[in-house]
């Protein structure tokens, strides 16, 4: 397949993830949509790495996966902390940050 097809799929997935981030209200699903966007970026990185025959893009994608795992860990920790404090699990209700 031509590299352009992979880039098109990547752009579609990124847009779907962005739509999810903009419309969803549950922070868990919001994290899932951020995962979608990161994976779309990974797909584009790998497509370009294949296009140039250079493996630096693959290392970049690997580091993106590490960062995504960290983001998930911290995000889920925040959600569990919200639940422990019995705050609403809804990003529209959580407008202000205070200790």
């Amino acid at each position, binding site marked *: *397949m*031509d*590299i*352009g097809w*992979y*880039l*098109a*799929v*990547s*752009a*579609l*997935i*990124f*847009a*779907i*993830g962005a*739509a*999810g981030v*903009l*419309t*969803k*209200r*549950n922070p*868990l699903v919001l*994290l*899932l949509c951020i995962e*979608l966007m990161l*994976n779309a970026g990974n*797909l*584009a990185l*790998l497509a370009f*790495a*294949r*296009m*140039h*025959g250079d*493996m630096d893009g*693959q*290392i970049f994608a690997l*580091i993106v*996966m*590490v*960062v*995504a*795992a*960290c983001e*998930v*860990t*911290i995000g*889920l*920790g925040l959600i*569990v*902390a919200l*639940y*422990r*404090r*019995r*705050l*609403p*699990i809804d990003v529209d209700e959580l407008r202000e940050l205070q200790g």
Partner: protein
Amino acid sequence: MSEVVFFMAGIGAIAGALGVVTLSNPFYAVLSLIGHLISLAALFLLLQAEFLAAAQVVVYAGAVMVLYIFVVSYIGGQDEPLYSTASSLRGLAILFAGLLAVELMIATLGSGLQAIDSRGAPYDADFGTPGEIGEMLLTRFLLAFELASFLLLVAAVGAVILARRRRGLPELESGAPAVRAPGMEFATPHGPRVGTMAETAGILPQGEDEVPGPAGPPWRRRSESDEPPAAGEKGW
């Protein structure tokens, strides 16, 4: 052959992504994301990223998604509230996402790179194998590798600190809601001590064996006092 695999995996990936966005139950959204990740791993294989495809399936679809499922089952998969408010904003968001897709297509496909319309660089059997990746990680990208491991360590410690039980909040432990505001009653879906280790081990204090919910749900257990009226008393 690769076209067939590409279209199957691509359609699977896009369908999984749409499932994440459209399904209202977070649990099903996580399952849909797992399907999306596995389809994406097939695309990675087509792009000769063998190590990354394996890592995608094992680490992402395996470990990280299990973490998600644990948290979803811990906080209870609350369905997304219906979009009664701000539906115009929602339409605007979908319009924005469509524009973003168009813009990304223009930015990548219209970039004028000659190789976009080709299959890429000539085939190299060593491209993307674990051995090559490991060699690059330990030579040219050693700093990035070490920083990534340090980042993982910091994230693990941070998650433990965030999710620990705090001692300075005694009223929270006794089950009183922290927020008393109209419209926020759904913040306490369970009664006190539900989900704690004390309940699991069956060592609840005296008189708390039956943990009451915050308000009587419509499916509450029927007791003897509210038996349905005998047939003949009422018209039905």
